[in-house]
């Protein structure tokens, strides 16, 4: 079972990796909606998977944060990606699998997955 002694060992391990920070200009901020609507729709496992994938790939330039309700509850879980000098990308109806793909395709390779964005979801609703 996890103990506080293990946390001490983890600290010593992490200390060596600290200080490796990317330039602020290539920072990517990923925000997950965590209001009642987001939580009820499954935002918690999405945020957990996002954090796991970011850690696994060692993406030091990615910050994961949360936001409240942005008024599109029917599209929750909602994830927004903010990159310097680029337009915000809003992903909707996210799942653990979809967020893992977003990390690989968008955050690592720089290609947003249009199919999962709010624009695609709204176009589909109109058809």
């Amino acid at each position, binding site marked *: 079972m996890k103990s506080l002694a293990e*946390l001490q060992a*983890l*600290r010593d391990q992490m200390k060596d990796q*600290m200080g490796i920070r990317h330039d602020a200009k290539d920072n990517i901020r990923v925000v997950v909606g965590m*209001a*009642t609507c987001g*939580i009820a729709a499954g935002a*918690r496992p999405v945020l957990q998977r996002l954090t796991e994938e970011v*850690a696994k790939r060692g993406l030091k330039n990615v910050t994961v944060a949360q936001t409240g309700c942005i008024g599109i509850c029917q599209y929750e879980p909602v994830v927004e990606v903010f990159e310097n000098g680029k337009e915000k990308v809003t992903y909707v109806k996210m799942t653990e699998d979809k967020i893992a793909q977003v990390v690989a395709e968008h955050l690592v390779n720089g290609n947003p997955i249009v199919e999962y964005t709010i624009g695609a979801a709204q176009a589909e609703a109109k058809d």
Partner: protein
Amino acid sequence: MEELSLHILDIVENSVSAGATLVEIRIEYRFGEKPWLTITVRDNGRGMSPEVAGRVSDPFYTTRTTRKVGLGTALFRQTAELAGGSFRVWSEPGKGTEVTAELNPLHLDAVPMGDLGGTYGVLVQTSPGVELVLHAVCDGREFTADTRQFREILGDVPLDTPEVIAFLTEFVRENFAEILRGSPLA
């Protein structure tokens, strides 16, 4: 909500929005003659007037200006009442708020606790600057997860480092499973 731990996540998000710097979550199971679970979330946020506190679990009341409904506490009340329990809110402006839900954890309509570790990890990660104390008790066995203690151990290593969050999530999952061992919920 399919898990009590999701209600807890939602209620603590309210505390964080209310400017709390310390949030204490207490979970207590008792499996005696009358099985009982009490969940309390107490914060030192800005608090509410008695008028507002009395209306928080009315789904058509909210202090938000962007929409007209506030479902979080209403849903938690419903979850507690469906499992033979009750829900109450104490609050005082400038002092803080305490939300208490009580229910029978063995009731046919009781919602399970679910991933308490996941809730704790997500809260620590997304609430920088807020101290989160989780205290869980089951028939005398107990454990505490306290960000103030974790910060002390971690020193310069930030609490929201992904590897640390993964550790804290597992720490709560394992310790919570351990105190429930031998109980009817194990």
